[in-house]
Every structure is written in structure tokens, then in C-alpha cells.
């Protein structure tokens, strides 16, 4: 009875997307407008707009505390926005919680990974969407799929049956990324996915991002590494102090321009229609930054 059953259980994650009503493997278009979020006295995000088309990689960059992770968590359903609208494929949606986001086809790798140290790799990969057979966990099918996902990422993990606590930082990150691929998402959000990865694994994650784009998924990539960003992104959104600071096409932007936008040096450039030299505008930064709003 195994083989037909296995194919049945393997197909079951698609039912997670039943609420979305589009065929497996296709991407989703996400658009945000006017999104704001406030934590006590800190206005972490105000009036953020952003679009990700299916088959597009959008990089989200910005200094520490710019609000990138907060935005990611809003899209992932962890925080509820105070203002603004989120649309998926043009339809306004409210992302009620993490499970809601999953059901809508949004998969997220969080900056702090959010893994359970006491559970093994397989359990973490499938947490919240366990495969079952007759009501009992289908460990065999989950373990097989775990190896398939991990190999796809060239993961160097000695065993999928050891607790997460026994893995290195990079191995954990690979597990977190692999987890976002479980359940066939339509849009994948990666919050600094390569921060702890080795050279080969970083290349693999970037290749994976390209592959996700090829299969038509929308990808949001948060990163501090400008060369990574320029290597894979189609568009780059810059956040500064919780606001949209700039938006570039990756093809026609240089690292210097990006850095200037992130630090705020480009603010005056834009005001002067990009004519001012990028160097030597550092003093504008202090002018632009309202006191007390930095992280």
C-alpha cells in the first residue's frame, strides 16, 4: 500500500494552498500600499509601498533598524499592520496570522530563524504542516522529502534526526531556508538568509533564489550584502527610518548609489535630480534623520 499512498501524501501540501485557488508552482504577485506599524513610541514603518510580481526578485535593503524585518513580519502575518493595504494577485487580503500567511502561499525565513532547538531537523522542516497517514505522523515520507529539499540546497547536514541544537549556525540557516520551500509556496521571503552561510552555501542560496524566480515565484530578499543583492535582484527597494527611501532597477544601479540611498546621502541627489556627486554629501544625513527615530 505504500507507493500510491506516498504519492498521495506528497501531493497533499498543495491542499495547503486550496484557499488560493491557483495551480501549484505558479507565483503570486504581492503589493503593499501605505503600510504603517508602530511599536509604542517607535514608528517602525510609515506609509510603505512595495510591489513584487510573480517571477520577480525584489531586494529589500536598509540600515540596521530601518524596518526591514518588521515589514517581513507583517507580510508573514506575525504582526498586524496599523495602516495600509496588502494585495495578493490584486485582491486585498488580511493576513490573520502565520498560518493565514502559509495558507495564502507566503513562506518566510525569519532573521532569527525561529527553529525549535529540541526538535530534530525533519520535525522543524514540517512544523505546522506535518504529513500524516491515518492520523499518524508520516515520518518516512517527511524524512525523504527533507533529504530532497536539503540536497537541493547542497546542505551539509550529518543527519536529519539530530536536534537542531546540534547543528552549526549555517546548518540551521539552511534548515530554515529549506523549511520555506516545504508546502509549495507562491512567494518566498528571505530575511538575511545568507548571513551565516559559507561560500558554497551562499552561492547555492543565490542560485536557489534564481531558480525560484524561474519557476515563477515572487521572492523578497533582505540582505546587507550589496554584491549578493545586485547579483540576483531584479529591483531593489531601499528603506530608511521606516520609510521608502528609493527604488532601483538592479540593472542600472551601482553599489555606491545603493549605499548612498541606504545612508540617506542620496536624498539630496534626488532633490537635485541626481546631478550632485555622491561623495561629499554626508552632512545631509544628519539633516534628514529626525532625532530619536534611529534604532
Amino acid at each position: 500500500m505504500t507507493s500510491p499512498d506516498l504519492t498521495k501524501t506528497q501531493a497533499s501540501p498543495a491542499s495547503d494552498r486550496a484557499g488560493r485557488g491557483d495551480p501549484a508552482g505558479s507565483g503570486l504577485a504581492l503589493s503593499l500600499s501605505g503600510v504603517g506599524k508602530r511599536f509604542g513610541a517607535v514608528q517602525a514603518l510609515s506609509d510603505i509601498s512595495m510591489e513584487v510580481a510573480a517571477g520577480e526578485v525584489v531586494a529589500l535593503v536598509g540600515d540596521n533598524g530601518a524596518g526591514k524585518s518588521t515589514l517581513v513580519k507583517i507580510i508573514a502575518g506575525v504582526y498586524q499592520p496599523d495602516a495600509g493595504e496588502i494585495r495578493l494577485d490584486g485582491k486585498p487580503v488580511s493576513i490573520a496570522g502565520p498560518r493565514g500567511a502559509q495558507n495564502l502561499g507566503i513562506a518566510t525565513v525569519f532573521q532569527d530563524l525561529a527553529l525549535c532547538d529540541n526538535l530534530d531537523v525533519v520535525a522543524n522542516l514540517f512544523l505546522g504542516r506535518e504529513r500524516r497517514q491515518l492520523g499518524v505522523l508520516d515520518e518516512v515520507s517527511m524524512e525523504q522529502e527533507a533529504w530532497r529539499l536539503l540536497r537541493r540546497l547542497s546542505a551539509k547536514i550529518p543527519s536529519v534526526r539530530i536536534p537542531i541544537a546540534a547543528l552549526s549556525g549555517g546548518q540551521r540557516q539552511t534548515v530554515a531556508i529549506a523549511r520555506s520551500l516545504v508546502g509549495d509556496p507562491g512567494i518566498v521571503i528571505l530575511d538575511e538568509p545568507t548571513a551565516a552561510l559559507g561560500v558554497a552555501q551562499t552561492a547555492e542560496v543565490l542560485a536557489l533564489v534564481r531558480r525560484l524566480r524561474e519557476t515563477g515565484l515572487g521572492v523578497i530578499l533582505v540582505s546587507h550584502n550589496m554584491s549578493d543583492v545586485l547579483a540576483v535582484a531584479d529591483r531593489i527597494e531601499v528603506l530608511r527610518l521606516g520609510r521608502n527611501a528609493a527604488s532601483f532597477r538592479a540593472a542600472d544601479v551601482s553599489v555606491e548609489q545603493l549605499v548612498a540611498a541606504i545612508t540617506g546621502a542620496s536624498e539630496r541627489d534626488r532633490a537635485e535630480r541626481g546631478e550632485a556627486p555622491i561623495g561629499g554629501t554626508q552632512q545631509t544625513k544628519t539633516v534628514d534623520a529626525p532625532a530619536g527615530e534611529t534604532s
Partner: protein
Amino acid sequence: MTVAADLADERLVQSKGLGGALDLVWRRLRGGDLGSLPVVIGLIVICAVFYSLDPRFLSSFSLVNILAYAAPIGIISLGIVLVLLLGEIDLSVGSVSGMGAAVMAVLVVKESQSLVLGMAAGVGVGVVVGLVYALLYTKLGIPSFVFSLAGLLGFQGVLLYILGSDGTINLPPNSGLIEFARFSYLTGTAAYVAVALVVALYVAGGLWKVRQRKRADLSAPSLVTLGVKAGLLALGLGWLTWYLGVDRGWSYLFLLFAALVVGMDLMLRRTRWGRHVFAVGGNEEAARRSGVKVGRIYVSVFVLTSTLAALGGVLAAGQQTSVSQATGTTDTNLMAIAAAVIGGTSLFGGRGSAYSAMLGIIVLQAIQSGLNIVGVDSSVRFMVTGAVLLLAVAIDSIARRARSSSGRG
């Protein structure tokens, strides 16, 4: 020979056959993953000490009693294992068990209701208490320590209130509950058949797992290992059945407890609910972000804990044939909570097993029975139990440190 898909990484230490399995166990122990080993060693030491003091300690009569009297508190302790897995605590299980027993006794004796109704109401009290606790925890965010401490005091008051002026209610001597909890034993052929059935189920489960994994091209435990384990299980249970059978045999109460433990263990390890309990205990925020319905997990666990407490109380009343003002007080509470910890369930959440309730309560009951046989005052028993509890928590803490230095979380 091709290597199974999950053993392909060259850094993985290969372990094959029985030797490999033993080697794995040794590595786990050294890494601080002690599991139930300390309790088992402790139990052996306790048995050796009391046996040398008075050989009657290991007589069939004494063992039958230890198992029978361990069962009701063990059932309460099973609930404690669940809350501990979430990193929470329920200090009120003793009072809840007393209240459940009192409600049952009042309905059956004073209101002349049927036994079934009385028992259902007694257990139902636990369900209600658990729901209220879950509400206090998930909606108001009150720490479990606080509301269960309040419950400890409050429900003891309820017990005194409903028992009224007489203070003690004797259950009717011909009650089916007393018959079940006190006088029913499994022995003789039926017992051996049951043992054979258990071993057969164990082997079938093991074979099925091996077959599934082989088919999926994953490494499978060797048949020799499975055979040896099944042989040990058959020998152990068979010998116990014979030895207990010299006296009265397996008490039904203990068999019920064992069934609950095995059932809970399977629920924890093999179902989505159990997986989520461990996840919430390990990292609640990660579980929430993975889409686990954390609130429901808390509700289910608090309800199960109080329900098991009430059930344990009702059964204890049957075993003692009466409910008194002392039912479910300090002693029950202390034993139930201590047993879970002594059995090896971590106080820090996310680590433990249903079997720890059984091991822990047998250790405590053995100590109690041993001290009784030796003729020591109950003052000494409290001191010994306290020391054992402290030892168990110390082992848990040390093992935790060993784990974090050897990467087992």
C-alpha cells in the same frame, strides 16, 4: 552496496547492527541525553538497599501493592508531564483530584446517583478546571504557577465544603469502582496472553517501520536489534507476570495506568498534536510563526492535566474506599509533581516522556513502601522524597549543561 539516502554524508558516524545501536546509546548518554537512565539506576539502588534491610521488600505481595498504589497518583503525574513539556506547572492537581473524588462520592452516596454519573461528574470537574486555567493563561496571561497555586488552596476549600460536617464519605462497599480499583487483578493464562499480545504488537510495529524505511530507501534499524529488544521485553514482562502472579497478579488499576502511559506516549511522539506540544515547549514563538495554534495546545494540555488529576482522584477514592478531608492534599500533590521530574521530564520544557510518570511514581512508591516495611516514620519519608527530588532536578540541570556543551540542546 548502496548507502541509504540518509547516511550519505561522509561525516556521519556509521552505526550498524546491535553493536552500532549500543554505541549510539553510549554516545547519547555521554552527550547528556540521559533520558530515563538515572531513574532506572536509582530504582535498582533503592531495591538493593531495601532488600538488604528487609527481603520482604521484593516479595510478590509487596510488588503487587507498589504497582497498585502507584497507579492513581501515576495517572495524576502523567498530566504533570504534559504541563512540564510546555514549561508550565500545575500545583493544584492534588486538590483537583480530591475535589473530583468528593463530587463523585457526594453524588453517589448522598444523592444516590448512579456510579457512572458520579464518576463522569468527578472527571468532568477536572475538564472544567482545566478550561478555566487555559482561559486564565491564554486570555489573561496569568502565570501557571500563580493560578494553580490559587487552585491548590481554593479547591481544597471546595473539598472541605462539599464533604460537609461529617468529613468522610465511605463509598458503598459493593461499588463497581471499589471492585475495579481494589480487587481486580489480571493473572494466570489471561495475563500471559496479554503479554504475548503486547510483544507481538511491539514486533509488528518494529517490522512495519523497518519495511517502510527500507522501501523509502532510508536506513532502517537492524532486525537483530529489534529481535533483542523484543526478547528482552518478552522476558521482562513474562517474568514479572509470573512473579506478580505468585501473589495476586497485575492490578487492573495499574494496567489502566500503563495503558494511559503507552497511549500518551504514542500521542506525544506520533501525532501532530504531540509534535506541537514539544514545539511549543521548545520555542513558543517559533511554533507560532510556523502556524502552530499555540493557544489550542495550551488549552488541550491544561484540560488534559486537570482531567487526569480528577480521574486519578476518583480512582484513588475507589482504591481507598472513601473520600476524606485529607484526600488529595499535600502528599498526593507532592508525589505527582515530584514523580514527573524524578522520571526525567525536564522542568525547562520541551523535553520528557510519558514514561517518566510511570518510572518516577514507581520510584516514589517503592521508597514509601520500603520505609513502611522497615518501619520508619512518615517524617523520614518526606525527607527522603525531598532528597530524591532534589537529586533528580540536579541531574536534569547537570545534563542540560552537558547537552549545551555537546550540542544536543
